[in-house]
């Protein structure tokens, strides 16, 4: 097993560390570094920030996994990964990563007005969603953002009553029905296992 860097979105930090522990990986085997989750509100900034880190750490690791999906980068991330011989997570976003593509599609098919939160978003809903979308300052924008949503779906990574309550409170704040779905870490586990066990990419 070689040295591996996981450069993760801050929104996945806890989950990456949890999976790393579950896989029994030491710090020598896997280094985890994170970028701020707030970059999601400015996705054009994700690829340049990833490139900066990969340039700075070039040559330190045998394998690099960038723990981002497509994440609204408009295709800007993949050329950076190719340049630095890195890979990224499967799926376009962390909702499909955690739920799995098939289940994610089934949830959408059941109700296309589904708004998703992960444990991370349940924990930081006020800062990243409510304040991030300016709803604290401009509450009249609520129907502009959420007028077509019908339910908030909490894709839970952990069995945590507090997070479930926070997600439910978020649903109430948005005026949406609440659905709690324990999905665990989904395809994140396989992605981290592969990058530590695979050959140099």
């Amino acid at each position: 097993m070689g040295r591996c860097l996981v450069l993760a979105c801050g929104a996945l930090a806890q989950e990456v560390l949890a999976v790393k522990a579950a896989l029994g990986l030491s710090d020598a085997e896997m280094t985890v570094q994170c970028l701020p989750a707030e970059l999601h509100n400015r996705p054009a900034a994700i690829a340049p920030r990833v490139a900066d880190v990969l340039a700075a750490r070039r040559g330190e690791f045998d394998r690099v996994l960038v723990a981002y999906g497509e994440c609204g980068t408009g295709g800007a991330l993949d050329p950076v990964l190719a340049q630095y011989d890195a890979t990224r997570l499967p799926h376009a976003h962390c909702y499909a990563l955690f739920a799995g593509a098939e289940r994610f599609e089934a949830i959408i098919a059941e109700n296309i007005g589904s708004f998703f939160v992960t444990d991370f978003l349940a924990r930081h809903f006020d800062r990243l969603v409510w304040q991030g979308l300016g709803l604290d300052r401009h509450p009249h924008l609520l129907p502009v953002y959420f007028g077509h949503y019908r339910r908030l779906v909490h894709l839970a990574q952990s069995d945590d009553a507090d997070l479930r309550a926070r997600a439910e409170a978020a649903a109430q704040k948005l005026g949406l029905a609440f659905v709690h779905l324990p999905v665990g870490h989904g395809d994140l586990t396989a992605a981290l296992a592969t990058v530590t066990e695979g050959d140099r990419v």
Partner: protein
Amino acid sequence: MSDENDVILDDLSDEDLVDQMKDDLYDGMAAEVREGTQILLRRGWEAGDILSQALVEGMRIVGIDFRDGTLFVPEVLQCAGAMKSGMELLRPILASTGSRASLGKFVIGTVKGDIHDIGKNLVGMMLEGAGFEVIDLGINNPVDNYLAAIDQHQPTVLGMSALLTTTMPYMGVVIEELDKRGILKSLPVMVGGAPLNQEFADAIGATKYGRDAAVSAELARALVGQNH
């Protein structure tokens, strides 16, 4: 931009009032933009001149700062709301006088199976701010909705939006249908949405890929031969 709370708009010269309206629009002050529009109309300004010199120019500055990361989505929505308050007064006048102030009609809608319309709404507002007449089809549009709107409105550009990887291929279905009917030859199609990229847009035969709302408005202007 402006911290002035006590400006009497009616006391300003035309030139200062237009500048103040641009500041107010930037600050998302809908009532002030509406009042400024009323004053200019009262002073005998043509609706098209108010639109182009105050509102469109104001939104152009907003677009630049949005593109450059100085303004973010909530602020831009506020700005767009302010512009809309002025547009509500101008639109009926422009329509009744058959004004050619518009750059043309832009039909826009979120594709079938997708209800995510924040990006589409932002694009619509930026397009209106850029001088287009926007026909918004809303969300969850099957190909028939686009065809009917094209038939009814004879747009200059068609725009489609999707947020989901599962719905974005439907843009290709619409473009294929437009191609089959010979519409694509004369109607540029713009696509956008978080999971899209230029490669996808090229693959489905879209005319342009709009990475974000500000870029989309610039591209649309370029498509009709209007560039700043």
